């Protein structure tokens, strides 16, 4: 068996609520693994702790107990090896699109010329050729999120962590972003942990879905998604898709 890219065993996480002087448990005994080249979705109702889970993988939050390991090393803080795409684009408003994409490359010591080259290639790949000199405020929400996606992808992360990246977009833009992500994934087989509350999105994109319970969040079921790749949005109309969808919905609602 291949060695897991990222694995988490038996982690608990609580937040202290100063107002009520109690501690709120958000994650309970989470075990999780992802293999190289795998696309895994974490699906759960809002408030179940799935974003907290992602923050732990990203190194933004510490665990109370348990282990989180990426490529054999304990996760102790944020790293470009585990690049994140947030729910909102979180671009630097004082940098233009190209500079935003090159920001991470600069931090890891890439030469400026190579960084510029890479930025142009990725801009082209997501259909934003010619927008390099625009500022984030001049772009639509969907375009900003595409920039946010490639600013992380360009770093060649070992695992890409995506925290409900399309949830804030309108339905049409969301479809086109999902389509784009499927295409990109076909080309580079990036290892991705994808947080979502949208069952269709999880089914369409992932190889495997981990369903989380309400708080305290536990992984209550793992489902392998059997659909052939390459996939397109039209998959959502198929009968198998609907059957699996209602099965998952049933699980979520119990």
């Amino acid at each position, binding site marked *: 068996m291949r060695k897991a890219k990222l694995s988490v065993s038996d982690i608990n996480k609580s937040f202290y609520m100063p107002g009520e002087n109690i501690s709120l448990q958000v994650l309970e005994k989470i075990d999780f693994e992802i293999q190289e080249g795998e696309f895994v979705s974490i699906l759960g109702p809002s408030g179940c702790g799935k974003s907290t889970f992602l923050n732990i993988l990203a190194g933004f939050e510490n665990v109370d107990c348990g282990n989180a390991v990426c490529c054999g090393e304990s996760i102790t803080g944020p790293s470009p090896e585990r690049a994140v795409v947030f729910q909102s684009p*979180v671009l*630097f408003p004082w940098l233009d699109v190209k500079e935003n994409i090159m920001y991470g490359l600069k931090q890891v010591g890439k030469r400026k010329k190579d960084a510029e080259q890479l930025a142009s290639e990725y801009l082209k790949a997501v259909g934003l050729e010619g927008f390099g000199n625009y500022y984030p405020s001049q772009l639509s929400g969907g375009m900003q999120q595409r920039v946010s996606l490639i600013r992380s992808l360009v770093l060649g992360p070992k695992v890409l962590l995506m925290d409900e990246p399309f949830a804030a977009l309108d339905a049409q833009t969301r479809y086109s972003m999902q389509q784009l992500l499927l295409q990109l994934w076909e080309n580079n087989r990036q290892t991705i942990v994808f947080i979502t509350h949208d069952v269709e999105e999880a089914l369409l994109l992932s190889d495997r879905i981990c369903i989380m319970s309400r708080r305290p969040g536990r992984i209550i079921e793992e489902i392998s998604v059997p659909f052939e790749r390459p996939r397109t949005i039209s998959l959502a109309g198929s009968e198998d898709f609907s059957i699996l969808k209602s099965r998952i919905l049933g699980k979520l609602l119990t």
Partner: protein
Amino acid sequence: MYKHIDKLEIAGFILPVTLFTVWYVATMEDAVPAYLLPSPWDLIRTAIDFAIASEGLTPYSGELLVHSIASIGRVVTGFGLAAAIGLPLGFLSGRIALAKSSLDPTVHLIRIVPGIGWLPLAMVWFGVGESTTLFLISLASFFPIYVNAAQGASSVSPMLVRAGRMLGASELRIFTTVIIPAAMPSTVAGLRLGLGLSWAYLVLGELTGVTHGLGAVMMDARMLGNVEMILVSMIFIGLFGRISDLLLLGSFRRLNLLKGSYEE
């Protein structure tokens, strides 16, 4: 929409034009004696003479450049000193709890005393003139610079900091490439307030006795009973204050640092 703006702009001219007309009429027939309020025409002649010594109207004819350089030099030095100390301290206290708790109480304690209240002490410490003026300018402009830099640095969106970290930036790089640029809109507001105060305290300092400077000319002209020169100096100070503000704002705009802080 454009029509609407035009109307509003016209509205802005009504008051100054009225005042100017009243001024002009009042001085035209010597209804107000010239030693209290000179006519607009006399004022313009005096100003031109002050600049290029065209008529030799006053003892200051042709001296605009000398006095302006003295005054601008003091503002640049005093304000520069305040910014050089206020910005780093402000950024630090906005981000580091220990810096904030060590600095803030003292800074705010000193801030309570109005800048003018420091004048007598400054004269005892630094003597009348140059050093006192620089001290007053630096002291007065330090506070808004410090407070606004701290405010800007402390309210940087945590998401931007997270983004910087996961993209591989070290703590130091986060400070220089995320915190400082994101704090800029507030910081520049503080710098502009500080610069405005610099001009105010320049005049205060110069009134106490320096040989060159627009404030010195005002005080000197008062003793000679030359109201034109007082008013002309006031106009130039206002003009320089406005120009310096535009230069400050313009340079930060050019550096692209006023893009607005990140909004979620």
